[in-house]
């Protein structure tokens, strides 16, 4: 039994990497991947506590999160394809036509 701090630390590191990537990168695909990183950091926390308290709820939640994330990626990638067709780029900084 590894101490609970290890997986939680890993999750925190993953989440921070995700945030930093989300805030700094320009490529939309990479930003997606960073999002996935954050999802999975959260999933890891669910699993850790599910195991720690011996409750099934956390694992159920993980399945839900993965499903929703898959759906979100499907929609997001479709949007990316559509944007790429019109702008010939997926540079996220160029998608600012709604700025005030």
């Amino acid at each position: 039994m590894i101490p609970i701090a290890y997986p939680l630390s890993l999750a925190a590191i993953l989440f921070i990497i995700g945030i930093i990537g989300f805030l700094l990168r320009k490529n939309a695909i990479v930003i997606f991947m960073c999002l996935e990183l954050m999802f999975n950091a959260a999933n890891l926390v669910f699993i850790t506590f599910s195991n720690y308290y011996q409750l099934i709820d956390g694992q159920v939640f993980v399945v839900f999160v993965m499903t929703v994330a898959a759906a979100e990626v499907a929609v997001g990638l479709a949007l990316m394809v559509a944007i790429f067709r019109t702008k010939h780029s997926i540079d996220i900084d160029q998608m600012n036509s709604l700025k005030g």
Partner: protein
Amino acid sequence: MESGLTFNLVPWVVFLPLIGLSINLLFGRKFGESFSGTVASLATGLAFVVSVILAVALANHPEGVTVPLADWITIGSLTVRWAFRVDTLSVVMMLVVSGVGTLIHIYSIGYMHNDVRHNGDEGRYTRFFVFLNLFIAAMMILVSADNFLMMFVGWEGVGLCSYLLIGFWFEKGKNGTGNSEAAKKAFIANRIGDFGLLIAMFLIFVNFGSFEFDAVFSQAAAITADKPGVMLAITLFMLLGVTGKSAQLPLYVWLPDAMAGPTPVSALIHAATMVTAGVYLMTRSAAFYMLVPNAQSVVMWVGAATALFAATIAVAQYDIKKVLAYSTISQLGFMVAAVGMGATVAGMFHLITHAFFKGLLFLAAGSVIQGVERGMHHGDHGTDPQDMRQMGGIRKQMPVTFWVYLIGALALSGIAPLAGFFSKDEILAAAWTSQPGIFIVLALAAFMTAFYMGRQLVMVFFGDARSEAAKGATESKLVVTLPLMILAGLSVLGGLLNLPGLHTLEHWLEHTLGKVEPAHFVWLVAGISLVLALLGLGLGWMIYSRKNEKPFVDPLKKALGPLFTGMENKWWVDELYAAVILNPYKAFAHFMAEPVDLGVIDRIGGGLAAGTRAMAEGLRKLENGYIRTYGLLMLLGLTAILTWLFLH
């Protein structure tokens, strides 16, 4: 019971003109001029027939009836009915309005045919008759009302029609706005008067608790004993309303300008009927005035002063219609003075005969104007067809018009045995017996009346033509001259209505107005007034029939000097009003518009808008379109919320 059925016809005096105007409104343009004119004349003519039937029925039941039509307003204890009052007074007014009205409608068929062509818009023919029918309907409501509120509806209705018809050629006149300015002036001057009438009505309601004539007048004596101040206020505010509608000092200024309307309008509204509404109102409310001697003396002095003042102005006018307009003001002054002296029957008598001969004079003047217009060459813009200085000698070209004009002028001057002699004499006799001061003023006004009519007759009809247009004038068609002849007949015979000794009108009206002491026929007064009339006419003839140089210069100008200049310029009353009331008010309005409205009120609104916009301008900087900014803000926000939750 049978007469009850007859009296139930009375709403039709209002409905018939309304039906006529509806037909013209819907189909008038489609079926053309003769259709419009016939429908409108027929509607008014039928209203006259109804009035005659009512008069005949009334002869058997002189006490009169009230015919309720509908409940109008019910608020708490106040109930105002839409009810028609048939009594000897209202039926006399109905007969005058619809009788003279019908003749003027027929005249208008011919007159407006030329007028719309002369002014270049044939499409307005039908509109004229719609307005004319609307006027008859409103006037009928006014005279047949059985309460003050319903009467006020008619009172405002005729004011509206007056406004519409003065501004009938609204795009014409001085600077292209002269006619519409005249219409506005009439409306606003009347509004001031209406304000007085409204205040009087409010006071009546507060103190009497009712608007109905019977209920109000039966309490008048008790209220006068109780609150004399209130009665004085009611009668004086009512007088303000009368000065507006009946063109008395100080609100008369709208009537001369109202001559901007087509001539039949001047005859119908501004001579024969509408302007007499004030006299009718005071006659109807005679029960009030009898109780307040102070108000009575104010009324009679206002009337007498107006009679003389307007007569002096009429002496020095050159526009054929303006002379008649000031003459109308002057004659209305006679009527108001008569009512003020308590001689209500004499006032009503003069109202009727005046409707005949002044209607006649205006219509005949219209015939003269169109005769001169026909004499004008194409492209002749130098001749003003209403300017008497450019007329002269027209009796040869327009014999019928000349003769009827002569009859009207003699009747107005008070030559026996024409209508004006008897009615004016009755007023003068009433003044002679009770108010010597008033008698002198009125006698002077009567003398000047004869003088300016003599002047006008000579300037228009005698001597040599002073312009090409006057030389080429031609007589009007029968549709125009026939009503003139009928009115001339009435002007001759109108005196029979109330011959001294018979007092037909007096006995007729006493059922409504109560028993009044019959006016005595004073031979001395009759003699004086006849001599004055002949003197005036003769003097006018002597002064104006002398050879006159070209261009025409009024012979009185040299003789009277600055006095004549004053009369010529209407004693600068319009200028005085402009300087004392109008211009300060306009300056105040400008002050409110420019510095106050634009400077203060608009700045408050504009400042609020600018502030909101500046704030929004700052806020939109936050929306820079970079996803990472939103992400960072979300992160910071969530962190802040979580921190807050942990710390609490």
